[in-house]
């Protein structure tokens, strides 16, 4: 678990801003086994943290995780096991990591208009409202999907 995550450099679309009809940041492998939280997304702001205001120009949106808040079963109850055996018709484990999509079309267009770089970074900052720890963030990778 971590409080924040910054991606490696991601390539911007090889298209003009007018050609982009939609752009999504897709976050894969997001853990939702612990506390509920809001994940704030900042572009090209690797030093962003929970104190960075959401009216900062680098803020691109957020996603929320409605968390399970811990395990209440016996040993192994919350261990996520792949169910890829062909006759296993059970649904996926409830704690199978989630995917989140944040629509960032205008923000990607802005980066394209600015044209200062061919790449950008994504920083995700977890915020648990109240006094609880923000150390709740686990995700596998982020991908930019753009549509023309």
């Amino acid at each position: 678990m971590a409080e924040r995550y910054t991606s490696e450099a991601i390539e911007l679309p090889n298209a003009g801003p007018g050609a982009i009809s939609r752009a999504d940041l897709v976050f894969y492998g997001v853990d939702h086994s612990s506390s509920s939280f809001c994940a704030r997304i900042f572009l090209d702001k690797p030093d962003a943290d929970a104190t960075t205001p959401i009216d900062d120009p680098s803020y691109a949106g957020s996603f929320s995780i409605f968390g399970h808040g811990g395990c209440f079963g016996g040993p192994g109850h919350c261990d996520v096991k792949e169910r890829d055996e062909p006759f296993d018709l059970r649904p996926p484990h409830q704690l199978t990591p989630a995917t989140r999509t944040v629509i960032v079309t205008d923000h990607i267009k802005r980066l394209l208009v600015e044209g200062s770089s061919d790449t950008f970074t994504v920083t995700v900052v977890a915020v648990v409202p109240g006094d609880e720890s923000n150390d709740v963030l686990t995700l596998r990778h982020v991908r930019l999907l753009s549509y023309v």
Partner: protein
Amino acid sequence: MASIGVGAGAGAVVGTAIESPAVNVRQRHSARRLTAGQLGDLRRAIAAAQALPDPDERGYQHFAGIHGLPLPAYCTHDSPLFLPWHRAYLYFFERALQDLVPGVMVPWWDWTANVAAAEAIPAAYGDERDPDGQPNPLAASPIQPGGQRPGGPAETARAPRLADAPPLPSSEWIDEILDLGDFLDFSEQLEQVHGGVHVWTGGTMRDIANAAYDPIFWAHHAMVDRVWRLWQLGHPQASPPATLLARPLAPFPMTVADTLDVSLLGYDYAGSTAGAPMRPA
């Protein structure tokens, strides 16, 4: 989406495309615009359900426990079944309430309403007491012993409006989501909106294991269901993928296909914002 807004303010255009395709379809209403009679029925139904003992499958504790604790937790999140499962959940809960108070309907909590922060939770759910001075059964609920976290509370609580909580969704944001043309895309975006409201409400609502014990959970999910209904009206040709339609929605004896037409489930969403004041003069 100009004809299918989600605003609840006076004069807002809401659901003009809603038709009445079946006899005896009942209307769910905004929690902010319940008549005194509707609100009284709702409070009586919830109180009666809360008064049933824990193992009674007609009772509030039974239904709240289906979502999380006690195990097994049946709730479906981070899944394309999110909307159908919660529609079935609301349907069976509402039917159980109607066995106790005929005609009662679960209202929706319009979190997009442009109201002062202190009024973001409708008074029907926020007031600690009803007009007769009795405890408001919509403000909190007991949590059965088997549903409590180890060392956790025995009653629901809320902690809304914390400074670092995500803001409640705006009607503009919902309108953008309503414009999405693909069910899976729409469902994922609406589920994110839903999660943010759970986080905003705080307390019990922020906890999957216990969220459904808070009476406002049901109004929150009625709003989610309503937004799905509005999306269906705006995209009559769109549907969940065919591979999902026969999927069961355990523990309910329904499939995804069974949930798609709310008129066949006997309810719809009020197409007018007209109504009597919620508070007696």
